[in-house]
């Protein structure tokens, strides 16, 4: 049993280690001694991709694009989903149940089917090749399940705190922002954690909606370094450097929040 576990662990982790190792080798080393440890460590692959070379945009651009889009999408998503979840949990307005049903239904929509109309009207709105456009799309895709989870959370949130704030003359919105949100930091952070990795990794919508090189995100950069044949080109090391840089933030993130990530992923899978 232990042998089986160990064997599978090697299968799982070796390709990832291989990726890291290869990214700090020269192309000559990669071809001649693919399994050898790098000697000496060469970080020039990283320098080249970070600054960009003759064919490619600087990687730093993609990195910043991805960072901005992920952060912006999250902020919009958390704010909008928080308000909506709160409304569904607290408000006893006509249409509450129907709205929840609608959100559940949107969970079942495969997002690929939205792409063609979206491509055109995002163009019409001037939101194609645009960070804001991408943020709105990602935030929307994350909304249904984040709202459902937020509602579940707010249902178990004690009323007393808000009531005190309301009696003190706070508006509903004021009570939400000043009382509910600060107390719910943990839940909101969990929502962020659930959503970060898929937004950071998203390829399909980015591929269609971002066709200008200067607005592209990391997954597009990775996909764009498509090899012709390994011997025919000398960008192998750079390609591995790009992959590593794309994966690294998520690895660090996983390292820091293991438990929350594994806990939240059941919910994420519903998307």
């Amino acid at each position: 049993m232990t042998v089986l576990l160990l064997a599978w662990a090697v299968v799982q982790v070796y390709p990832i280690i291989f990726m890291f190792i290869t990214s700090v080798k020269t192309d000559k080393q990669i071809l001649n001694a693919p399994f050898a440890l790098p000697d000496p460590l060469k970080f020039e692959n990283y320098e080249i991709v970070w600054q960009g070379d003759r064919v490619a945009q600087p990687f730093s651009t993609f990195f910043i694009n991805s960072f901005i889009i992920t952060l912006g999408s999250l902020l919009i998503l958390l704010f909008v989903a928080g308000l909506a979840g709160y409304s569904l949990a607290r408000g006893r307005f006509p249409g509450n149940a129907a709205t929840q049903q609608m959100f559940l239904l949107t969970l079942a929509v495969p997002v690929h089917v939205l792409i063609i109309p979206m491509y055109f009207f995002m163009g019409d709105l001037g939101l194609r090749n645009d960070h804001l456009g991408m943020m709105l799309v990602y935030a929307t895709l994350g909304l249904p399940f984040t709202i459902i989870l937020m509602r579940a959370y707010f249902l178990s949130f004690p009323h007393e705190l808000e009531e005190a704030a309301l009696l003190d003359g706070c508006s509903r919105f004021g009570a939400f922002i000043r009382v509910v949100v600060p107390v719910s930091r943990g839940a909101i952070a969990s929502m962020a954690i659930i959503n970060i990795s898929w937004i950071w990794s998203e390829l399909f919508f980015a591929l269609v909606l971002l066709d200008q090189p200067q607005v592209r995100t990391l997954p597009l950069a990775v996909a764009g370094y498509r090899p012709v044949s390994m011997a025919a080109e000398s960008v192998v090391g750079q390609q591995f450097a790009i992959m590593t840089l794309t994966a690294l933030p998520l690895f660090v993130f996983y390292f820091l929040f293991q438990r929350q990530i594994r806990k939240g992923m059941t919910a994420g899978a519903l998307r």
Partner: protein
Amino acid sequence: MEVDKADSTLKRRTAVASAGQSKGQRVGFWLRRNLIWYAFIAPAVIMLVMFMALPLIQSLELAFYEWNGLRPREYIALENFKDLFDDRFFWGALSHTLTFAVYSMVGTVGIGLLLAMAIARRVRGASIYRFIFYLPVMLPMAVTAALWVRMYEQNFGMLNVMLRSVGLAHLEGTWIASRETALGSVIAVAVWQFSGFPMIILLAAIENIPEDLHEAASLDGISESQRIWHLTLPLIRPVLISISVLQFIFSLKVFDLVWVMTLGGPAESTSVLGTFLYKEAFRKQEYGYASAVAVVMFVVIFTVTYVYQRLMRVEAVEF
């Protein structure tokens, strides 16, 4: 639904206040009480309508037109669907999608179950295994795909070099480069990346089984394999079914892996619905035809997911 105390007090006040007041004033109270909740939910509804409902409706509509994106579109009724029915590449994509979904579901859930049962026996380093097995799930799929393109490469790829070096040169393959093995190779990558996902869920389910059940079983002198078969598996069955369906639905939507690894090739042997749709729309500018593909995808995936939701009653995670 839970009774909202703040609201009910407000309602009482409203009721007292509205006694003897005009209808207009009562509507005013009603509005004041509910308006804020509508305002809170409005941004979400607007975004979902704009970026989900409208595109969905337009997709359904566009499937009945022929359109290249430039000339005015032309209504052709069911022509797109008829063409789809006769398009062997569409049937190819559909069957590859189902093949991909079935095998990657069986692979990930099967391996995930084995791993979960192994770890649940309190092996040393259980938390390290758990960490490692979930690590690939965190990789962006584009990275996984690009990485495995390199692994599968014929001459210098890790897989073939490794086979050669351990004297198994006869097993060397062309993997994603030939029609016969390409789809299988892509499926293997999906299994490699995602088996950690069912593992975590199944492990949690196994660890939820009360300890005394195991103790009772071992007191009764039941063998390990009997215990797994008669105790563990029946108890985790709901979770097992649930995670299998989730994995299946998730795999039906495959795009990234295939796109980055093979673009659907060679000779369309790995083409799936996602890549087929993308190519028809954004390579061939057959937007109407591609929308018909989208409709088929929608019907298939929506139905499966909806039935799943109904059966499983999507439950929320507690914090």
